[in-house]
């Protein structure tokens, strides 16, 4: 199995797909339907291939697997791919969400279907590339390249203020990332390589670490996003089409969390330890402040967007504890958030497609008209607030456990975030689903179609499965996480 360059195949199948799509005409409804089917099959094929990763993945091996390495730009910068327990789940999350996104766009995307699907497939290439690359320049290439399709997805198919939002998204992220580029170049010059495996063994001096850490941090902080640099996220989410929001919350934010685990704490343990209290403070502020902001939102998507910022606060809290539990918790929280928030945005999309408004006040009493919808929405709301038995609980619990062992105060404040999350989530649910169905236009609402059930079913199953039986997930993550933690400990001593 190791002879097949399976990661490259995963990365480049969407590209091949794009070439196919370019050849298909797009001038009537029939052909745009064909385009959607083609894109769906390509994305689904990629998902199946990525599942084969799971079967041939060696659970006991903490090192990088499926490694591919070819000479690329020059000595020191190579085309180096590989995944370990930390990244494999993100790859599968990506390949799983993209077909769902395409399926979710079947009805809502009315014009320029071809460009839309091409953008999505290109985005998939970049996202998989980010999680697979073991070379900093390659990583940067994929990390930034994703901006181009996302810029177009928000800008062309977005809502009313799409231009403002997409510019804000693009320039914010670009401005954050260019400093990471300078840091990568500095690393390349001072060590002669940008190979991640080599660099993980390399010891930077403390001063170098501080500067480089800040440069990487600016990029990841904007992307994840951390308070106070989160303001692009609600705008981008609100204006993006449903599938755009799904992929933004589901995968793009995770690229930064992954970057924190792989690079920030892997390369610069001293600096990470130095800045850990700073990160904790920002995360706790983010958890509390954005939860409070979420409480007063009148737009559903905005509410979920702010809750994303709060959830990402837990992720950063967990990662910077440098404990196995904390990092595992962070990863599981990211995976769970990738599923749950994606699903929540899909839920918003379902009612938006019917009523064309995201204003919470316009809804109410949907339970009588849309029982299946209410049921799935409930599962995801409960997962989002971290109810035991759902995927949201596992991650949050591990993170809180690890932060408790480090610092009680941060733990107490973070826990209030959990309470607030319950408040805004349940209140949102109550306002939309319960109450009497008094608004006239709501009487026209119909329940989930077959297509929508197909979209929600895997997400519901995963949410509950991870919540009830997280063992397989933890088995995958654990060896690599332990290795990372041991390496940090070794470097710190």
């Amino acid at each position, binding site marked *: 199995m190791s002879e097949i360059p399976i990661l490259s195949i995963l990365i480049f199948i969407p590209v091949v797909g794009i070439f196919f799509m*370019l050849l298909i005409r*797009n001038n009537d409804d029939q052909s745009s339907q064909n385009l959607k089917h083609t894109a769906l099959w390509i994305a689904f094929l990629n998902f199946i291939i990525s599942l084969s990763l799971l079967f041939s993945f060696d659970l006991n091996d903490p090192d990088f697997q499926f490694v591919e390495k070819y000479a*690329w*730009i*020059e000595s020191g910068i190579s085309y180096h791919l590989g995944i370990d327990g930390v990244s494999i789940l993100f790859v599968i999350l990506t390949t799983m969400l993209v077909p769902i996104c395409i399926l979710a766009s079947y009805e809502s995307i009315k014009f*320029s279907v*071809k*460009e839309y699907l*091409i953008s999505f497939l290109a985005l998939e290439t970049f996202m998989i590339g980010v999680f697979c690359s073991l070379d900093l*320049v390659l990583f*940067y*290439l*994929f990390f*930034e*390249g994703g*901006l*181009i399709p996302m*810029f*177009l997805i928000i*800008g*062309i198919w977005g809502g009313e203020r*799409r*231009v403002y939002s*997409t*510019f804000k998204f*693009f*320039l914010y992220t*670009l*401005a954050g990332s*260019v*400093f990471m*580029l*300078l840091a990568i*170049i*500095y690393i*390349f*010059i001072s060590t002669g390589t940008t190979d991640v495996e080599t660099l993980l063994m390399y010891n930077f001096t403390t001063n170098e670490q501080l500067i480089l850490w800040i440069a990487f941090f600016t990029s990841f902080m904007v992307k994840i996003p951390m308070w106070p640099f989160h303001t692009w996220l609600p705008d981008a989410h609100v204006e993006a089409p449903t599938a755009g929001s799904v992929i933004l919350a589901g995968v793009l934010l995770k690229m930064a969390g992954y970057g924190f685990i792989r690079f920030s704490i892997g390369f610069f343990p001293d600096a990470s330890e130095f800045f850990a209290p700073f990160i904790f403070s920002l995360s706790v502020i983010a958890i509390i402040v954005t939860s409070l902001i979420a409480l007063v939102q009148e737009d559903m998507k905005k509410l979920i967007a702010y809750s994303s910022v709060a959830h990402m606060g837990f992720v950063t809290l967990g990662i910077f504890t440098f404990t196995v539990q904390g990092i595992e918790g962070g990863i599981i929280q990211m995976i769970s958030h990738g599923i749950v928030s994606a699903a929540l945005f899909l839920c918003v999309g379902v009612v938006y497609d019917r009523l064309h408004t995201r204003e919470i006040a316009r809804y109410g009493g949907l339970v009588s008209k849309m029982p299946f919808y209410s049921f799935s929405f409930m599962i995801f709301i409960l997962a989002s607030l971290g109810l035991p038995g759902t995927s949201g609980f596992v991650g949050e619990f591990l993170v809180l456990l690890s932060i408790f062992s480090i610092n009680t105060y941060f733990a107490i404040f973070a826990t209030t975030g959990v309470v607030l999350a319950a408040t805004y989530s349940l209140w949102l649910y109550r306002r939309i689903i319960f109450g009497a169905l008094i608004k006239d236009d709501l009487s026209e609402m119909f329940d989930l179609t077959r297509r929508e059930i197909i979209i929600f079913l895997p997400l519901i199953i995963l949410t509950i499965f991870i919540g009830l039986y997280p063992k397989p997930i933890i088995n995958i993550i654990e060896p690599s996480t332990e290795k990372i933690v041991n390496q940090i400990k070794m470097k710190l001593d």
Partner: protein
Amino acid sequence: MQSLVYILPELFLFIVATVLLVTGLFLKNIKLINLLAIFSLLVTVILILNQPFQSAFLNSFVVDEFSLVLKVTILIGSIASLIMFVSSKDDLNINIYEFPILIIFSTIGMMVMVSANDLLAMFIGLELQSLSLYVLAALNRNSLLSSEAGIKYFILGALSSGLLLFGISYIYGFSGNTNFNLIAVNINPESLGLIIGIVFVLAGLAFKVSAVPFHMWTPDVYQGAPTPITGFFALAPKIAAMGLLVRFLFNSFGEIYIDWQQIIFFISIASMMLAAFAAIAQTNLKRLMAYSSIGHIGYALIGVACFTDEGLRSLLIYLMIYLIMNIAVFAFLLSLKRNDGYFENISDLSGMHKNHPLRTMLIALIMFSLAGIPPLAGFFGKFYIFVAAIESEMLFLAIIGVVASVISAFYYLRIVKIMYFDEPKEEFDGSSIKSLNLLYYPSSILIIIFFIYPSPVINISEYAIQSII
């Protein structure tokens, strides 16, 4: 006599140009003359590739790896602008057979520039190049803007040539030599006169590469000149002037690099920042491209300011990628027209993706490439520039560079925004011109797939710099 053999490519082009000039009088077929010109430029490429590395005319004209690479790059630029001319001459109503001939003369001038190893050879090359360009800018006699561009360019250009000549006389006076190598041998680091000379020569050269604060002519000339000629301005002369700048500074004043480094440092920062801000307000596409080229020259100058082989390598990589991107941009500009002619305003592009999805997608990608977004070619140009800057500990330049690139991303994105997000206007003339396809498809594909196999460009640059350092 031996020396004449060493300048064979230039000589060949000169003879071709003269012959074409005479035949053009009798042969009223512009297309044929243009084809002959393209063909002779191709022959010149072959001649250059087979030339032995020698120096001619008492070492005032050198043929080495550096000049070889730059000459081929320049010739590619000239050929591209001749192809643009063929495709647009009827629409622009400039049926003047001198066009290809002037391009050839200008090309000869540029070839002399990149080979010049002597102040006099440098001046001759520069003037031959500039005089042809002045005429080219004013070529569209019926257009007020074009004439204005020509006059403006001529007056300012003459002024800069004056400054250059003044500087040359200082350098000659204080070093006693005009040959770059001899200047380097007899240099007196303490001499203030020499520094004054360098400053004046740099001012003249900065004018030619249109670096801030000598950039004022660029937007007007870009806007006024017919588009194929604007394309030519953006492609070849900048590369030639850059080559000349490098040889002049590195060969003769390498020893006192501390003195000129700060000048380059300043004009590089000024060019990047001014272009990034000024371009935001532009509504005319060609003016916008003018500011964009000023900005790109700013980045390229970082490579010069480093004064390392890494810097020089990054400069050459940048120039080659810049050439490819500009060929693509101008070929696209010429391919977009609506019944009453080419359009100039950015707003004319509005919503074009509805009717021309493929072309819009390629233009958008080129814009992203110009902005330096990975994985497109433009990113690699900037990447190497920053590598060079950080390696020679010019972190400040690198930081200004990335900040400027974020700001300039805004105006490139604005074009994408207008093409994709705005309401469509009427359709363009659908027929795409065959000869332009020859330019923009290969160049945009090169831009897109550059990241897969960037080694050739890097190897060529490494090959080129070995004769300088």
